[in-house]
């Protein structure tokens, strides 16, 4: 929680401290926010994809590979915990969730079928965000070149573009661009997505993360990561606690007892599942095979039900009775 706020402050206001982290950050560090200390890899990759085939396989390809490599290197260390702990959009969604919780309004869940169908959207977005910039420089499938107004197409509809600058008091991204039809449609889409983002995340925990193409991109490299969420199926009673607290609603965490690597494409690595697991050693996070955080029975009761261990010490009167 504290870490999340710190990460949020860093990625939103880091520019004031002249911090510069790089252009391949595996999370939504939005350069549309003038004070952002680094750049979301998605914008870099969209820019780099805006190249002719010739240059992509030539000199520009090197730049592409370098930034991809630095993305992977950054990512591999803490895996998808970027989503759970660093991403400012994730943090904003968590705040909205908190607000809803305070208001006592219930959250929604997808049913299994919708879950299965909707989760594909992020892959579609990922393909589009690479395909469209490529199509601006190259004719793909004989299509005419796309308008340059489609540059960085995902950024145009990404709610982060509008929201993150708002935190430094910059409303300049909140607009509809009437320059031409393309820009008008894209900017309207951006606003619609923003509205969906806010409303959606009010009713559904981590609503946007479910559709986030960054999350899809992460998943491609997730297996090689150092930070891993591991499940020991033998200790699992399938009580469903982990699924209940899961913000994205991954059922496999509760029902899959065969696989040990539990970071699914929707996983945010927020580790709430570990907090909610009452079985000793059933779920754990390991960093380079060293366990970092494990599920324990004692931990379950103290974390989830706020029972402190005092309550479990025999009271004096009873001992004296006997």
């Amino acid at each position: 929680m504290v870490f999340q706020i710190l990460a949020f402050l860093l990625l939103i206001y880091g520019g004031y401290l002249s911090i510069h982290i790089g252009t391949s950050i595996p999370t939504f560090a939005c350069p549309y926010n003038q004070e952002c200390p680094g750049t979301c890899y998605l914008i870099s990759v969209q820019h780099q994809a805006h190249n002719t085939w010739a240059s992509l396989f030539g000199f520009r390809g090197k730049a592409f590979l370098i930034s991809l490599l630095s993305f992977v290197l950054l990512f591999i260390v803490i895996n998808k915990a970027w989503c759970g702990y660093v991403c400012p959009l994730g943090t904003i969604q968590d705040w909205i969730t908190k607000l809803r919780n305070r208001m006592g309004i219930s959250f929604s869940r997808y049913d299994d079928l919708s879950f299965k169908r909707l989760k594909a959207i992020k892959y579609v977005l990922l393909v589009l965000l690479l395909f469209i910039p490529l199509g601006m420089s190259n004719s793909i499938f004989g299509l005419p070149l796309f308008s340059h107004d489609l540059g960085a197409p995902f950024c145009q509809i990404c709610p982060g573009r509008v929201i993150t600058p708002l935190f430094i008091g910059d409303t300049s991204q909140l607009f509809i661009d009437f320059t031409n039809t393309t820009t008008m449609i894209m900017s309207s889409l951006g606003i619609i997505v923003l509205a969906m983002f806010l409303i959606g995340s009010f009713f559904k925990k981590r609503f946007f993360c479910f559709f986030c193409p960054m999350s899809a991109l992460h998943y491609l490299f997730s297996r090689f990561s150092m930070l891993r969420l591991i499940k020991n199926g033998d200790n699992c009673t399938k009580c469903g606690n982990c699924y209940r607290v899961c913000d994205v609603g991954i059922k496999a965490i509760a029902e899959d007892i065969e696989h040990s690597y539990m970071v699914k494409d929707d996983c945010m690595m927020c580790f709430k599942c570990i907090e909610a697991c009452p079985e000793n050693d059933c779920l754990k996070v390991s960093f380079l095979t060293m366990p970092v955080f494990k599920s324990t029975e004692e931990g379950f009761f103290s974390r989830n039900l706020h029972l402190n261990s005092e309550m479990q010490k025999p009271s004096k009167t009873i001992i004296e009775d006997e």
Partner: protein
Amino acid sequence: MLFSFFILHSNFSAHGSEVLWLTNIPPGERQKEITASGMHKLSSIKAGRGKVRIVQWVTRGNNVLSSAYILNSELPEAEIYCYTPEGDLQECNVDSTKHFKELSFNNPLEGYYNLYLIRKEVRNDTLFILTAKAELLNHSCRNGHKDVDEKIQSGDHHEKIPMDIVRKRTRLENLHFFVASGDRISFRVSKSSKPLMDASVTFVTHQGWEKTVKTNRKGEAEIQVIQDYFSPWQDINNRNIYNYLIIADYTSQEKGSFMGESYKHIHYTTSLSDGYYPSKVMYSSLSWALGLFLLCSLIAGGGVVYYRNKRSRVYREIRITNN
């Protein structure tokens, strides 16, 4: 969108002196060979192996619409200087084979290239020094956005330039900067690298509207870019780059001789031309955005609430069909 038509050209500005200026817009016959390069769409020609050279043409006249391109033969003896963003002088080629005078140079570096064309001439006891300047920003996002502040600086170092005019950079300016209608832009006029007071600075819009102000003690003059052209509302197209023209005039009581002819005054005229966009307020609407946002929020939020209240199915129905 290009206009290389010739109208009766008045070679002299409102205040009666001749103006030369550099333009980005190719004459009709060259249009086919010219491509726009970089983010700022500088006119350029291919120079082999993926490289380009930036091209500028010289026009005469104090009105953007009615100025005429200068023929190669008309201006044989002009001085031409091209400064890189780092302040070094670099070669600038004048292609003598072309019909119109055409200046071209390489731009490998990121930042502002300053191109000058100077013509000196004595007439009526007056030395006319006509300077045409272009500030050409070279930027591609692929090259990154480091050291922006250094790159956008305009070197005020040109001792060879008798009277220079520089657009003052604003605080928020970056490598993606465009002048837009409605912006207040300031210019600093300097003579021999010293701020020049009381020079008159004339701002001419694309449509020909003009305004003249005098520079202050620091040699600065501020002008607001007005918008005097509106595209019809039904065609949503606000990406028209128009060129404005800035003309600085100054007459000093210096005596001397130039090329054997003596003069009693020197009349300096320096022009600077650049593109300007329609103002952001013309095409980006916060209120529309807010409206759309609210509408969508209401529909989405209301939808969820309505769905929750009306929902009778607890889980997805399994559909059965007759066949």
